[in-house]
């Protein structure tokens, strides 16, 4: 157990660093704006007509907020699912929701649907995937962590194949580049609608998960022990999974699927605050947000055009994960 003193200090430090990073990111971008301009715009919200105001308020701010929320959602989901499935290799992809959502989005692009319908289709197929996971588990007559993981893997594979089918069907010169860019994830088209679309379900679900944070500790014991402690494992796990599915589906709907964050961030958070979910969940949220803000800063400033997020998260995430693994195995040997 970490001392409560360092704990008291750590959580606010993470929140403050996320906020500082967010405000700092408002000063970055391809449009040349002086620092003084940015802060002037932030403080005086008076003339919304000027270019500077437009850049700060309707380009950068929604984008930074979406990055924070999406990263936070993925970190939180990853931490929760790793606990629920007693498995450090789990990430939000494992329950099949990401692949389901990716299929929904790709299908919408293939059919040329409007942005709103596309978000709807992404969200709907994400949740469909979760329902199917439970259907497969129900057909087997059992519902434990292993069965759910296996069902998730089955559905991930199935939906991934459907996405490939769509890519194969798509016009290679017109639609395919669209689908590929979307699948790799981007915050390039961030706006206030999307912030709302992500923030509203997230607030509800995150609040619920946060309420359940000590019960998730119990879920991370094995099922028998949890039952012995008087927890109704199955309904609790269902609630938690539905929450995670909503988070992931909302995130994919606004920004495309983003890999690695949900896997690496919980490990990093565990290193900082330990395994207790009461502290791990908020820490994962804020760390995920910080990580995503940095990734998005790179995505929009490294070149004049946009770089897909999935490329950067993997390039940063893989070495970071390696570093964490080496560190923890060295510690274990000592």
């Amino acid at each position, binding site marked *: 157990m970490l001392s409560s003193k360092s704990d008291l200090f750590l959580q606010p430090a993470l929140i403050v660093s996320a906020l500082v990073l967010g405000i700092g990111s408002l000063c970055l*971008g*391809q*449009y*040349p704006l002086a620092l003084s301009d940015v802060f002037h715009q932030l403080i005086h919200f008076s003339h919304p007509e000027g*270019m500077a105001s*437009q*850049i700060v308020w*309707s*380009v*950068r701010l929604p984008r930074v907020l979406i990055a924070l929320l999406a990263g936070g959602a993925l970190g939180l989901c990853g931490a929760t699912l790793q606990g629920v499935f007693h498995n450090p290799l789990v990430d939000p992809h494992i329950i099949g929701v990401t692949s389901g959502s990716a299929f929904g989005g790709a299908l919408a*692009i*293939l059919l*040329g649907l*409007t*942005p709103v319908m596309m978000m709807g289709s992404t969200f709907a197929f994400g949740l469909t995937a979760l329902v199917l996971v439970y259907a497969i588990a129900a057909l087997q007559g059992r519902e434990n962590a292993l069965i759910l993981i296996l069902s998730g893997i089955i559905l991930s594979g199935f939906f991934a194949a459907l996405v490939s089918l769509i890519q*194969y*069907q*798509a*016009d*290679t*010169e*017109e*639609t395919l*580049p*669209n689908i590929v*860019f*979307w699948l790799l994830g*981007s915050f*390039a*088209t961030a*706006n206030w609608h999307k912030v709302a679309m992500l923030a509203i379900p997230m607030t509800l679900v995150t609040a619920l998960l946060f309420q359940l944070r000590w019960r998730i500790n119990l879920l991370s014991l094995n099922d028998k022990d949890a039952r012995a402690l008087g927890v109704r494992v199955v309904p609790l796990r269902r609630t938690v999974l539905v929450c995670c599915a909503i988070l992931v589906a909302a995130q994919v709907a606004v920004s495309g699927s983003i890999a690695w964050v949900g896997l690496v961030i919980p490990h990093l958070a565990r290193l900082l605050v330990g395994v207790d979910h009461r502290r791990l969940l908020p820490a994962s949220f804020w760390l995920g947000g910080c990580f995503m803000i940095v990734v998005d800063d790179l995505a*929009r400033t490294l*070149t*004049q*055009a*946009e770089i897909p997020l999935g490329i950067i998260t993997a390039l940063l995430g893989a070495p970071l994960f390696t570093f964490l693994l080496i560190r923890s195995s060295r510690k274990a040997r000592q």
Partner: protein
Amino acid sequence: MQTIRSIALACATLFLAFSAHADRVITDQLGRQVTLPDHVDRVVVLQHQTLNLLVQLDADKDIVGVLKSWKKQLGPGFARFMPAITSLPMPGDLTQVNIESLLALHPQVVFVANYAPAEMIQQIQNAGIPVVAISLRKDAAGQQNKMNPTMKDEEQSYNEGLKQGIRLIADVVDRKTQGEALINYAFDARAKYNAPVSDIPDSKRVRVYMANPDLNTYGSGKYTGLMMKHAGALNVAAASVKGARQVSLEQVLQWDPQVIFVQDRYPQVVTQIMSDPNWQAVDAVKNHRVWLMPEYAKAWGYPMPEALAIGELWMAKKLYPEAYKNVDVDAVAQDYYQRFYRVNWQSDAKQ
């Protein structure tokens, strides 16, 4: 005194209102109404076909930003028609844009492809910049942003669409005379050079396969098939494939094309096909009729005026040399390039 002042003020307001009305409204090829400033001289173009057309309309001086993949789409040689392009900012690509990079260029209009994501168009529009989408097709309502539209009459759709597209672009950058000249030249040349092969019945036409890398080809609904038709050929893929797609080798073997064409931008495909043992049974490979096309014969999904004017002629002469004994394709090409690209064109040694 007070009245005079208020009248003066009213006049000033009216004047301002009118000068704001100096804006014009045009309809782009997605059927969107776009309000443009009266005079446009800062253009960002995120579609390579439009970029090519702007250069031919002598409007390259007005371009302040281009798509990132122009080199890949138009070939590095495109820089000789527009030397300034190598130093131009590249704020986005066909399907994405960095909105801040775009705003930093202060463009008055942005050209995008008809298949650019609706979100991207919306985003640029919300930032206060007019967006003009170009499809070079004249589609039925509701089909405009589809990748593989259902077309009643491909021929009409592409002919009228190309004219409409050139007129639209010319209108936006105020190069109307150049636009009409380009349309007339391209369609006149096509009519003249297509005549010798236009009466060949389908059963006698040369069966042609268009080989893009990795077994990708163009089926029906694309300009490529029309180009072949105008040159007296038959696109073997058109019967069973729709749009730009990947096909299987078995399918190609079954089609057994007599000629395989490869676009100028994929020269490696010729050697791949000629050296691959699996392709040796194909009629075109057996008879060494796998041909690399010149740059102007743009057998793309989208029609380009140079493909109509000289590309179809080149292809027809390649397939039916007897019918075109007296036509010097290189001279025709040279005339075209001099006229619309303002450069002295030399035929490449490799052709």
